[in-house]
């Protein structure tokens, strides 16, 4: 067959969102690739210039619906940096715990998505089953399944409901057992390993130069985690370690995410132990922001997220720039895709954890 360009998307089972991957194939081998994005672009950054500071929190939730908490969190961090607000201790713990729960939920969504990518629907359903448990936890904490509107500038909206911690511990216990089940299903399955090992390796140098962050970067052996390198909230007081693999291939990225889920469980357990039992959960932020800039970085489930706010003394931000991790990771995807097979496209792209809402903004 001659070379031809194939449009994978906007409607394609591989996309997990809405984008278009143009691949040039020679028979079954990919010779070039070009992601086309912007199908979800709604002008988020322009719209928030017309919103008051607290009104942006629910908008930030809808940046990435897979991990909405982390996005409203990073927005609150940036706004607090701009306004100079100090968050109470208990609120920090609640935020970190929610962050980690959201990370598990998001990674479960990713795990669910790679199942059909690799051709197995069972993982999808197993991961969705456990994701519901974490959604239930969020539901009792925030009242919503996906878009929480929970953090506030200067704290969180409400305290944990009674018995929430008990439910949390139960869920985590149950979930750890289920993690073993996933590893039985995937890691000990030679066909899965056949599809993932030695696929699309990315060297540490390339990965960091291309701006790849998060689990995909740590899968390439770079020890870089914003929670560790630039700790926010209370991460420097907690006892945890980064999950790094050296291989750099798809399997390493998979392993890093699976390890991160276990690590998140450990962090949540530790938070539960160290959390002050009572105390204020919110301070009142000023209505208007001072003239100046605020910036916050944090470790989103997909990588490093960054928000950069410019305040002009009014109650609306002058400019709010979002650095979305998958946006940059996606720009690196042609490097990973070249010289592999068409059948590898879903596994390589799915392993990067696609979220288009934050990418297109």
């Amino acid at each position: 067959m001659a070379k031809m360009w194939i449009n994978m998307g906007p409607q394609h089972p591989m996309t997990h969102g809405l984008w278009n991957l143009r691949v040039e194939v020679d028979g079954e081998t990919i010779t070039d690739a070009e992601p086309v994005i912007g199908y979800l672009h709604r002008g988020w950054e322009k719209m928030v210039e017309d919103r008051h500071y607290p009104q942006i929190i629910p908008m930030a939730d809808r940046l990435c619906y897979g991990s909405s908490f982390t996005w409203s969190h990073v927005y609150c961090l940036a706004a607090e940096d701009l306004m100079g607000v100090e968050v109470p201790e208990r609120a920090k713990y609640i935020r970190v715990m929610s962050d980690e729960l959201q990370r598990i939920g998001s990674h479960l969504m990713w795990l669910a998505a790679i199942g059909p990518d690799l051709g197995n629907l069972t993982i999808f359903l197993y991961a969705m089953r456990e994701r519901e448990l974490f959604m239930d936890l969020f539901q009792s904490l925030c009242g919503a399944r996906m878009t929480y509107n929970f953090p506030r500038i200067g704290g969180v909206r409400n305290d944990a409901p009674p018995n929430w911690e008990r439910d949390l511990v139960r869920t985590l216990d149950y979930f750890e057992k289920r993690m073993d089940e996933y590893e039985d299903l995937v890691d000990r399955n030679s066909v899965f390993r056949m599809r993932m090992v030695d696929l699309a390796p990315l060297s540490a140098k390339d990965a960091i130069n291309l701006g790849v962050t998060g689990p995909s970067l740590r899968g390439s052996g770079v020890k870089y985690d914003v929670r560790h390198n630039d700790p926010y909230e209370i991460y420097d007081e907690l006892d945890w370690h980064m999950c790094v693999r050296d291989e750099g291939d798809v399997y390493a990225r998979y392993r890093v995410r699976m390890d991160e889920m276990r690590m998140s469980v450990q962090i949540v357990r530790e938070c539960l132990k160290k959390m002050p039992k009572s105390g204020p959960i919110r301070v009142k932020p000023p209505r208007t922001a001072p003239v100046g800039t605020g910036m916050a970085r944090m470790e989103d489930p997909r990588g490093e997220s960054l928000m950069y706010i410019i305040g002009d003394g009014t109650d609306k931000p002058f400019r709010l720039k979002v650095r979305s991790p998958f946006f940059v990771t996606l720009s690196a995807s042609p490097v990973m895709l070249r010289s592999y097979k068409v059948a590898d496209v879903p596994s390589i792209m799915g392993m990067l954890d696609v979220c288009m809402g934050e990418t297109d903004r």
Partner: protein
Amino acid sequence: MYLDLWQLLAGLVHWLMVDIIGPIFGWLSFHGIEGWLTRPETLYFITVILVVLIVFVVGMLVSITLIWQERKMLGRFMDRRGTQTGPIGLFQNFADALKTLQKEIIVPANADKLIYNAAPVIIIGTSLFLMATIPYSEGFYASDSDLSLILTFAIFSIVPFGVLLGGWASNNKYTLIGGMRAAAQLISYEIPMLLSVVSVVILAGSLSLNDIVWYQQAHIWLFIPLIIGFIVFLIAMVAEVERIPFDLPEAEAELVEGWGTEYGGLRFGLIMMSEYARGFIGSALATLLFLGGWDGPFKGIVPDGLWFLAKVFIVFGIFIWMRAALPRVRTDQILAIGWKKLLPLAVVNIFIAILFKTAGWF
């Protein structure tokens, strides 16, 4: 205990024609018609039509039940309930069929219309044709040729041709790649499959499916001596009927719906149907060749056909289990498995069969 379909229907037709309808025409003084109706050729013709009809209906019912089995079993493997339409979800397939009947028929504007329309006919026709060669029990079959095994596999391997034609004629890049994959995969898995069947033929000494089952009834179920061949046959059969982990031609993740992307409505429904019909034929062949066909304990009480169907459902259950547990392999890997693993194993299996035959153990 078995039902001799041919004898039963021949008797029925004879009674109906010679004793009831014929005399009625005779009483009406249409003696020509009576004479024509009671001729043995007419009786045989009607019998053949009835037999084919019954075998076809039974085959389709079994295929539909396989779809239901897949949906329910897959649901259970995946920790959910599966379809619920009708009692325990049995009517879901009928709903699907009735729906596809009502859908608009779309032929893509740039498709090669003749071939686009002909490809499903080839696929569905050959899949249904296969039902004629499968014996359900000693007397329940549509045809019992001496060469039924060869006939079966010959028809079985026409489908990739139709898939390739359909994929090409749809004028879509996904279907083209899917069709190419189908051709490459099915051709390369034909060889290990046929080689593993050759070992059965060597031991049984016949090319008739009925004879092979009789041989197994008399001696031993062939999967015991030829376990390697059985495994090779099962794996190759999974590839032949395009099921996960070898469903590359319709790999949903990268090629939207594979070679059938452009087929909608009734054609889509019939293609789905024919896939499960092929699944049924595949499991039936595994049953007949290796698992003793309709052989089973309690021969006096349980009808033969039930043993056969039970084994078919068990073999298909293995296919479903594979689907629930395994992901899809890649194009290069599937060819590597076929040529580098299955082919040598199949050859080894033939040597084992020859060894057994010359040693005279079976």
